């Protein structure tokens, strides 16, 4: 419950404060968001399977975001940032889909 409320609070804060994204963060923020979504979906799946662990979630969330950002940063340095960020988004998208499928099986038994 509390995490859901926190998510809502974050959304409201974003809507109210209307911050602008710093230029240095601009390439990384979308990737970071997708990576975090991956961690969240993984957490929901683990919760449903009864193997959720707070610490694991925190570490995976942070490391997901950092690794995604690092990969994109490396790609930028190597001149393949665009392609690499596409690759990261694809991989994370696949993971989100598989997690969502697992959640669906758990919730709807289908």
């Amino acid at each position, binding site marked *: 419950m509390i995490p859901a409320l926190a998510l809502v609070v974050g959304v409201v804060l974003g809507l109210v404060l209307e911050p602008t994204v710093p230029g240095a963060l601009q390439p990384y923020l979308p990737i970071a968001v997708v990576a975090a979504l991956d961690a969240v979906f993984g957490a929901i799946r683990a919760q*449903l399977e009864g193997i959720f662990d*707070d610490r694991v979630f925190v570490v995976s969330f942070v490391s997901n975001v950092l690794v995604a950002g690092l990969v994109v940063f490396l790609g930028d340095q190597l001149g393949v940032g665009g392609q690499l960020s596409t690759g990261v988004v694809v991989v994370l998208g696949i993971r989100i889909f598989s997690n969502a499928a697992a959640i669906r099986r758990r919730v709807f038994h289908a």
Partner: protein
Amino acid sequence: MTEPTRGWRRLLAPRLRRVDLAVAALLAVLGFAAVVQVRATQEDGPLAAARQEDLVQILDELANRNDRLRAEVSALNQARAELSTGGDRSEAALAEARRRAQLLGVLAGTVPARGPGLLLTITDPEDRIGPDVLLDALEELRAAGAEAIQLEGPVDLSVDAAQASAGDRVRVVASTALVQGDEGGIVVDGVQLYAPYRFVVVGDSDTLASAVGIPGGVVDNVEQRNGSALVEQRDEVTVDALRVLKEPRYARPAPEDGD
């Protein structure tokens, strides 16, 4: 069956620990970041979210397109300039063609002519003046530079020559033929004329007058036949008899060399 239920309960049941706060903070950050990113994408359009290399590529494409359009603009400008000068040229050519048509019309007798010249009135009381005399007179006038000639007859001599209403008038051109008339007089290009005749001539009046008046010339010739030849120089005479141009049946313009 119990496991997912317990999972849901654990998900929904609040248990405050430090790690829970961390989870909550992370999720808040996620929501915040997601909203910020969505807003940034919506507000700034596609370019703001684009990467530097993509921007460079877009810029390159724009520069290329700019160059192409610039080239197109200069080509079109050139075409326009060419067309406008071409228009001037064709206008000038048209004016020149009109001018030449007028000049040729004077020669061919299809347009009226006006200018300095003289009136040569020939009377023939004894009916002894035939086409040969008039032809001589015509040749004399042509040789003296007559530019437009018409032959009238019979001329009413009772009124002033300038207003004298002629009987019939014929424009004299290159193909003009003078023939003895069946019932007297002469036939000029199919038109019957009777004495007294009058030539209306546009040209240098002094030259024409002296050409007509030379000893043994037209005037002498006419007077030998007991006629009279009256030469009147005018500042302006009007040759207004016209003829219809016939389309040549056989002759076609041949291409000129070097044209």
